[in-house]
């Protein structure tokens, strides 16, 4: 098994601190932003909403509170198509009225005195979800973990183009460490492991940066430099090697949402997002409100230099295709990419020549080529026996396939949840 090194494609200047994106004049907030069930709407057309007001309440498994990202009036309730497929209700808010928070000094709650149940309830009420994987509500995620588990902070971006997590780690290290301490106290963590990009920003390379964690004294703190910072094989490694309740993996974007909810009392209504790709004039990381149309974000980055071939929500290996520029930013989207033909390197789909590259680079050690053959031949049982179930949909097999066969697409469609 070889690990794949991808071109990082981050040769643009990162502005720190991360600039705030303009507020959208209309925000479209889907009531389902991750796996699980959609939230139940509690506002009607015409309802005047304030920033951070609840629009929808949890309604079943994995669903969570959804808040208004901007002050204004509910203009319409429409059906919105989800990038990952399917549809859900979406609340459209027209910007108007005054801001409760923007431009005001943030409040600071002293979390150390709060009880565990109150902290979890706050996370729930503020709509905090993990910003990777299934988008599980954070309170449920934390409660699913064993007391004394290990915390792993992945302070790096694992896919090309994206700089979302690194820029958060760089610009809000203090808030991030506070959030780590909050989570550590909630799960009574045994150790805290911070994974940083070995080639990434210098400020994150030193253990000194993470000294506040050590000062607390009750946790073992370890800094891991991942030399495969761009190694897309790693998300799988992280996800699969964390067996169930033994470890808790978190991204900086989740951690700052925790910080904002607990310390500043803010609902999860904004997130950091990388807007990049060869078709974007001025690539940037922005802090934008949930519900902002991706077209607005692209506009703010200078618009298109050329007509993009693919519009992507998320990373180039695991993201979703965007059908149009009106799609809103959601809690789970860390990147908006506009890719040009030399970047996508699409090509004619040709027969498999059994070169074996897909199996050579597969991070879970299965043979995508053979499983693909089984699946297209309708031999589901054989495919499962060959390890179909361990597919993590990392996209690497399709990336390396010289015949441009949609291996990953086929395998993940059959691998299920």
């Amino acid at each position: 098994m070889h690990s794949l090194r991808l071109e990082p494609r981050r040769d643009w200047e990162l502005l720190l601190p991360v600039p705030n994106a303009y507020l959208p004049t209309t925000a479209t907030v889907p009531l389902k932003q991750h796996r699980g069930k959609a939230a139940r709407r509690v506002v009607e057309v015409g309802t005047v909403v304030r920033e951070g007001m609840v629009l929808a309440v949890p309604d079943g498994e994995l669903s969570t509170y959804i808040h208004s990202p901007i002050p204004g009036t509910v203009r319409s309730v429409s059906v919105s198509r989800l990038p990952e497929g399917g549809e859900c209700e979406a609340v459209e808010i027209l910007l108007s009225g005054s801001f409760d928070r923007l431009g005001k000094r943030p409040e600071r709650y002293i979390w150390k005195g709060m009880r565990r149940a109150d902290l979890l309830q706050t996370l729930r009420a503020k709509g905090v979800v993990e910003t990777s994987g299934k988008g599980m509500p954070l309170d449920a995620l934390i409660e699913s973990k064993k007391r004394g588990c290990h915390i792993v902070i992945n302070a790096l971006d694992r896919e090309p183009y994206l700089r979302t997590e690194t820029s958060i780690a760089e610009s809000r290290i203090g808030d991030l460490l506070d959030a780590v301490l909050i989570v550590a106290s909630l799960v009574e963590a045994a150790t805290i492991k911070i994974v940083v990009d070995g080639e990434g920003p210098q400020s994150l390379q030193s253990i000194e940066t993470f000294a506040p964690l050590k000062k607390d004294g009750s946790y073992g703190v370890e800094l891991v430099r991942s030399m495969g910072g761009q190694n897309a094989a790693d998300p799988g490694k992280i996800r699969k090697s964390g067996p169930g309740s033994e470890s808790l993996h978190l991204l900086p974007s989740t951690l700052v949402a925790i910080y904002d909810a607990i310390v500043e009392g803010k609902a999860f209504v904004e997130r950091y997002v990388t807007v990049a790709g060869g078709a974007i004039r001025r690539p940037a990381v922005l802090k934008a409100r949930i519900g902002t149309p991706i077209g607005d974000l692209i506009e703010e980055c200078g618009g298109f230099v050329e007509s993009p071939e693919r519009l992507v929500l998320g990373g180039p290996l695991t993201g979703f295709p965007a059908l149009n520029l009106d799609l809103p930013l959601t809690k789970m989207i860390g990147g908006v990419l506009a890719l040009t033909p030399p970047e996508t390197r699409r090509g004619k789909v040709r027969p498999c020549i059994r070169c074996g590259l897909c199996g050579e680079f597969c991070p879970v050690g299965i043979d995508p080529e053979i499983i693909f053959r089984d699946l297209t031949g309708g031999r589901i049982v054989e495919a499962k026996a060959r390890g179909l179930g361990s597919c993590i949909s990392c996209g690497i097999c399709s990336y390396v396939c010289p015949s441009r066969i949609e291996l990953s697409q086929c395998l993940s469609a059959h691998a299920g949840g």
Partner: protein
Amino acid sequence: MISSREVLVSGAPFIHDHRTTARSAWLVSFMLLPILLWETLLSGWGTLGAAAASISVALAADLLQSGLRRRFELDDGSAFLTGLLIALALPLKPPLYAPIAASAFAILVIKGAFGGLGNNWMNPALGGVAFAWLNWGPSLAASQGSTPASLPLAFVSTLPSLVSGFDDRVTGLLNTLLFQPLGASLPSGYVASMLGVESNGTIGLPVGLALAASAALIGFRVIRWQIPAAMFLFFIAPFWAFGGLASSGLFSGDVLGQTLAGSFLLVAFFMATDPVTSPSRTGQMIIFGAGCGLIAFLFVEFGAPAFAPLFGVLFMNALMPFIEGIRWPRAKLGEGKE
């Protein structure tokens, strides 16, 4: 803004590696072309004519076999490469029916009948060349010693003799500087064979160019080194030990003479490494290559030397299902490294 002409909706990943099947095939052809041109320069237009025949027949046959399946596949480069390999592996000036029949057989029967690119169980060029040798062996063998005649350019008519003279000087120099101090000596002829002139004055494969092309393609990671390396090793070792048994005893086989004899190089680097008909895991590649080498040795020793490398690879092609059954578990997540 995005034009309405095309909205792509297929799922992730959205980016791909630069490698494509077609590009690899065309790259191999591109690296092999200098060999053909050099051979033409030395031996005359007939060589180029034979190559043109085998390539155009291969292309036409591929148009037919892919057309029957309502596809167009000429642009994948594999038919062109098959035709070119057949031209290089056959004698320089064969009777024209040989390359034509070999190409047609390769594309229509070996490739087309099994369902086109990716479905054949032996390399088409290899099968085509074997087909020609089995049918017209004597006349092909008779045409093998191509003499430098009817050269396309007047000024190169002296090339073969120049090469021979160059060989004498370089061999002499190497012997004085390198081999004599070591108590050995390099027979003359090897340096000339690097440039395509055999010791008896006939024209053959320019070994130097073939090696350079192989090295470049290994460097580009288009062909993998494991199969040719194992094939060479497992041919050379027994041949060195027993190849000279009849004439000069143990450990005296003319290893260089055998492996540098045209077809062995071409077969080892360009036909045995065909991804479709060879394994892709390291251990299996080494078993495959070793089998090719050993069987080639057996053919050289006890059968028909002209077929040796061809049959070595053909035999292992047939064993592919068994070889691919030999598996070592791959390193899995969470095991090993951490």
